[in-house]
Structure formats: C-alpha cells, structure tokens
C-alpha cells in the first residue's frame, strides 16, 4: 500500500496535495485497490462550489459505485478530463495521472480535520482487520 508522505487524507480514502491556496485531489492507492478496475469517473464542472465531507463526484468499478467526498471546501478549478476516456489511470497512478480535481480553497482550518499519512495507514490497517 502506497501512502505518500507529502499528502493529507480523508476517512473516505481521498488524498489532497496542498500548494498555497490550491489543492489537488484524488483517491488513494488503498481505495483503488479495494474498488478494483475503475471504469467510470463522474466529474464535477469547473467552477462548482464543493463543501468539505460532501460528495462531489462518483467513481465506479465494474462491481461498485462510490461517491467521492471533498477533503476541503472550495471552488473546482480543474478536472482531469483524461479520466473520461481513461478511467483506468486511477488504478494505474492514483497519485499521478489518476488525480481527479483541483480546488481553490480559503479556510486553512479545514485542513485540521484531515489525516496525516501515519494516521491514514493506521485507519487502513483497521479496515483490513
């Protein structure tokens, strides 16, 4: 299981890479592995306002449908259009080409609610039993 050091994580298995007031969001290696082959990603429109812990999109594998939850509130500034044609990039490179959206956010305090890599690893280990 790959859990990069420089990212923060949600309970729902999204990761967020913070750069000033901008952030990139995707789902974790653990999440894509649990879901299996991803065949569809429903992306929000650029400009959509999203709220922390609320659904902003959907990722579907052959067998399952899962909501994507916003790690932080803000405005969607970019979406990964490549995923419309190549949703499998989420499996192949969840922290790279498989990124899902970019957000401009305002409230740094919301970052406090997110998990560190260590906390996230612990959470996954629990889930795996």
């Amino acid at each position, binding site marked *: 299981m790959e859990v990069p050091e420089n990212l923060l994580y949600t309970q729902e298995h999204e990761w967020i890479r913070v750069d000033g007031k901008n952030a990139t969001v995707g789902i974790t290696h653990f999440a894509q592995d649990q879901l*299996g*082959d991803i*065949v*569809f990603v*429903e992306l929000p429109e650029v400009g959509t306002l999203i709220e922390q812990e609320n659904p902003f999109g*959907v990722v*579907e594998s052959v*067998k399952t449908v899962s909501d994507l939850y916003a790690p932080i509130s803000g405005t969607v500034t970019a979406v990964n259009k490549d995923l419309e044609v190549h949703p499998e990039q989420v499996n192949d490179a969840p922290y790279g080409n498989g990124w899902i959206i970019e957000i401009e956010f305002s409230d740094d305090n919301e970052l406090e609610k997110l998990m560190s890599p260590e906390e996230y690893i612990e959470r996954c280990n629990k889930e795996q039993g």
Partner: protein
Amino acid sequence: MANDSNLKTTPLHSMHKELGGKLVPFAGWHMPIQFKGVIQEHQCVRDGVGIFDVSHMGEIEIAGPEAKQLIQYLVTNDIEPMQNNQALYTLMCLETGGVVDDLLVHRFSDDHYFFCVNASNSDKDFQWILKNASNFNVSVKNTSQQTAQLAVQGKHSEALIQKLCDTPLGEIGYYHFRKAKIYNFECIIARTGYTGEDGFEIYIDSKDAKSVYKSLIEEGKPFNLQPIGLGARDTLRMEMGYALYGNELNENCNPLEAGLEWVIKLQKNDFLGKAALKKQKDAGLSRRLVGIRLLDRGVPRPHYRVLNEGSLIGELTSGTFSPSLNAGIGLCYVSTEHTKPGTKLDVEIRKLKVPAEVVKLPFLPSRVKKINC
C-alpha cells in the same frame, strides 16, 4: 449482512485466499469476486482460458423407474429426445408459470439423471422436487455437499484438460458429457458453460477438488490460465445476454417474455406451469426482455430506470460494464413496441439521462463449439 463465519465455503476456499482472491458473501457462500481484476480475468477467458470455482452450484440426482416421467412433469423442456451423456438447459416452473429455477438436466441413462441448479435455489429446488415426486417411483438425492464443480472456459480449455485426462475430449459435443478421470480422480466432464466460449464444466467429489484444481492451475501455466472470480463470471454472461436467476428470472416473471420460449415445449404432455404458460402465449406477449447498450459513457446497474421520450418504460434487471465492448450494457423487460433493435432509449444514472439503444442479443457473438459427436 451475514457474518462471514456463517457463510458456506467450497473445498477451494483456502486456495482462493492463497491465490489472492477477494472473497465476498454471495448467495450464502464466501466466494471470490475477483483475483487480479475483473477486466483482466474477463479478457483471460475471452482470449485464452480461465478456471472458475463454481462449487456453490447445487446438484440433485434423480434415479428410478419413473425418473424420466417425473422430470418431464417438473421441467418445461422436453427430455424425451435426450441421449445418454447429454445435457439440456431448461426451466422448472410453478403452476403459475413463474420460474422456480433455471437448470441443466444431465442424462446418465433412461432412469438416471442429475440436475445442476443455482446455488441460491438448491435447497428450494430439492424441496420442490421432493414435494412433486411423491407419486413417482424415484429416489431424489441432494448431492450438492459432496460435489464440487469447476468451470474451465476459453478456447484453450480442451487442450488444457486433455493433458490430464485420457478421455478424448474432442468426442464430447456441445451440451454432452462423459464420465472420465482427471489423473485418478473420477469426474464428469461436460461441454457446457456460462461464458459464450468453448469450455467445460467438471463435477468432482468435494474431497478431490483441491487436487484437481491445483493440477489444472499448474498445467494451465503454459496457457496463461488464471483463476476467475464471480465478477468476471457476471460480465461474461452479460455479454452473452444469458439470463440470471434472481435478476431476469424469478417466481413472478413470465419466462416467455424472457425469450426462453425455446426451452418451453408446450406440445409436450402435462408439466408444471404448462396451462399458465400456454394461456400467456395464446394471449400474446406484452413485454419482452431486450439488450440495451449505452451510447455514452456510464455503467448501467440493476434497477436503474429506462425511459423512452421521457416516459418510464422499465427497469434494468441486470447491468454492467462490458469489457469487450468498452461500453455499458443492460437487460430490461420493455413493452413490445420498444423491442426493435435501434430503438432509442435513456437509462437514468443518478440524475443523468444517458442515451442508449436496444440491441440484438447476444451483445457479442457466442464462440461455443457446437460440434455434434
């Protein structure tokens, strides 16, 4: 949700874990949904050969002087023309015409047969058969516990099994079977399957299942054989438009609408459901099961609503992503006016209406080997 420990397991349960299978509850069993990944496993069967543990399926043996009469009364298809070592797809219906189960009848001899039935129905089927057998001179045995079943499917399946078996498999025609040996283990090898590829279903004693499975995995290496989970079993059957009990078929459905008229022989003597089915046929069908293919991206799922020009016309009974077509596909009962291939529809996926059209079944041409021996 059932606790995993309450679930039944097949003799290959520990093997699945060793092979990296992801196990989930399915019809009361703890079964592998996938190993390496549904899409890869799907392609493995379409391109070469894969092996499935389908030991959860039920087996019921019927023997005795009146076995044939009982079966003729129980099932909708006609077993009279069956030869020894032949298999037949059929339905068992209620008096109402609703479907108790869909199954395969295998004939050993005039007075000895076995059924292969759905896992979720095997206890119900056994009780149903017993209930209807009281006036017949037969013995009915539920042999599901002691019987394991492996499906080896794909164009290399014959070459693979032949390496372990002296019986010339080329002599086994489509929907035929033989008693044979794999190594020294007695088994029944049938040229049947649920994938649309050439392939075999192997019935073996549960205690031998692990040895046979291991040998096939080992000998399968040169063929790039992979273990296949239930996820790919579903995408493979969906591409063939095969009905699945619990989705397309149930006790309230009309099997004529499901396109199964070819296994309902209304000219045959009295059988359970005959009067009701004849009445339905004479009245004419108002609905039919059709294949639906999405024209835009998206994954249709069971129970998603299907619309025609904004009006609700049905609900998907099955739906999935087709790895071969790289498109969403589904099955749906719609009124006969909407059954023509090319009819434009919408499938409601969350809040979106995704354009789709009616297509001819199967979604993909079947490649089963219809040789007659």
